[in-house]
């Protein structure tokens, strides 16, 4: 049956209506985002500067490291995405001051959509478009993957053992990702929650 919810993010039940939802989806909004790329030979200095200023060490393996109000998502060797709650202060300027000449910082706020995914069938849903192994023997809380979901480049990381995942996708690709996600979740039933402000 055609279901308008399949075509756009809209709070409500999607797909199978009986029983508890297999997937619970929530968009996280109001976050600041910046890319941090270490200059040649400066990765260790960049990591040290962040550690001193934020209490979070930008990871050198595909993981996420969180300080009190900022998180660093591994994105490649010497390359991270910094995430934090939106504020009136410029995120880029705050990061730029800390990293100085050790890294280049570019504001990416607004460029991505961030989803949180949970529920008893969350891994079954993701398996329909993500080719990496998300079984706990291979992927655990704090692990990050830069990979593709339904052929779209995404950052995917696990935030709780339940498991709970976060998925970050380029905003202009979100419609395409959404159609895949909604279609993939329909057989299990999906509860789409009202968007909520980002927290670490």
């Amino acid at each position: 049956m055609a279901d308008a919810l399949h075509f756009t993010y809209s709070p409500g039940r999607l797909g199978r209506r009986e029983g508890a939802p297999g997937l619970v989806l929530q968009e996280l909004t109001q976050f600041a985002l910046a890319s941090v790329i270490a200059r040649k030979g400066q990765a260790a200095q960049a990591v040290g500067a962040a550690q001193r200023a934020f209490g979070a060490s930008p990871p050198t393996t595909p993981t996420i490291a969180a300080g009190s109000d900022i998180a660093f998502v591994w994105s490649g060797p010497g390359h991270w995405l910094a995430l934090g709650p939106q504020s009136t202060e410029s995120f880029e300027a705050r990061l730029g001051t800390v990293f100085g000449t050790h890294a280049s910082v570019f504001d990416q706020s607004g460029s991505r959509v961030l989803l949180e995914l949970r529920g008893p069938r969350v891994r079954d849903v993701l398996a329909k478009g993500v080719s990496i192994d998300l079984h706990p023997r291979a992927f655990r809380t704090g692990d990050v993957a830069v990979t593709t979901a339904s052929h779209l480049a995404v950052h995917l990381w696990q935030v709780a053992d339940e498991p709970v995942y976060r998925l970050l996708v380029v905003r202009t690709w979100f419609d395409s990702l959404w159609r895949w996600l909604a279609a993939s979740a329909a057989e299990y039933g999906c509860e789409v929650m009202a968007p909520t402000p980002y927290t670490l």
Partner: protein
Amino acid sequence: MRIPCPHCGPRTHEEFTYYGDATVRRPSATGPDAEAAFYDYVYTRDNPCGLHRELWFHQGGCHEWLVVERDTRNHDIKGAVPARSVFSADDAT
């Protein structure tokens, strides 16, 4: 076919783009035989049977260049290392 990215872990080859022979080196642009050397560098390729070292770019992952050792007879991947480790060693010599 799976490629063991040294940064990301094992990934499907669909996340990568193939960029050919990793053993050829860009010739000098100022040498007396530059035109012939560049023709050879750009267009002339061997078609090896067996182990081959080749460049792959992980565009669906970490955006790093890799040197992958692949058996052209059966796609058996022997290993992958960051291209920068191979080419910076070149620069040093």
